[in-house]
């Protein structure tokens, strides 16, 4: 348990290290999620258009 705590404490630099890793995770996730949702939304709008015709 203490080793876990030590791991998360990062020798007192927890804030800097984990913020770095967290932000990176967020930015990288956004790079996947945004195009995927964009694609879905675009397909839906195209489908709507096609139905109208």
């Amino acid at each position, binding site marked *: 348990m203490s080793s876990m705590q030590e791991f998360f404490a990062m*020798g007192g630099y927890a804030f*800097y290290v984990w913020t*770095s890793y967290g932000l990176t995770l967020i930015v990288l996730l*956004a790079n*996947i999620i945004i195009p995927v949702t964009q*694609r879905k939304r675009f*397909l839906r709008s195209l489908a709507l258009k*096609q139905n109208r015709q």
Partner: protein
Amino acid sequence: MPWLVSAFVLITVAGLYGGLVLAPTDYQQGDSYRIIYIHVPSAWMSLFIYVVMAVAGAIGLVWHIKLAEIVAISSASVGASFTFIALVTGSLWGKPMWGTWWVWDARLTSELILLFLYLGVIGLYGAIDDKRTASRAVAILALVGVVNIPIIHYSVIWWNTLHQGPTVTKMDKPSIHVSMLIPLLLMALSFKFFYVIAMLQRARVELLQRERNAQWVKNLISGSK
């Protein structure tokens, strides 16, 4: 694609485990140096992707290959993201080391300018309505940028050594222990995989938007209903 993703996950987990758990604590910087495992690979990727973008742009420009055009512009946002990550992590690393969030360090300054270059590419692409024209514009700009980057980089380093002396180059360790180096290389590889995955996602959207009138898109829609 699933193959790519699983390779990415595997390498990333290995890299992170190696970097965060196995690698020893640095005797000077403590554990804060562990930011290196994202900062340095991101900085590498930011340059690498710009070069890929310029090469793809050039191929698109010369041979009118649509796929190359799409690869070029799809790379831009991923590259900008890595540049951004390199900047922010550099700043987060700098705070405990230098005591301030921002130092006009050579690498950070170069990254900042590189970010502007990326934003210029993305902005220009967005500003031109006709996407084929926009791809050509982006390709020209990326090529100009790629010729300029070494000059900019060199000038910034030159300027930096002049104004601040060599004390701030803490980030560039002369020698690095193998147990620290291996995770670093793993993370670099992992980021490359990520780039390919993210770029392909974006490329799919681009392709779809450009070919919205093509038969395959219509089939896709009818198929999904």
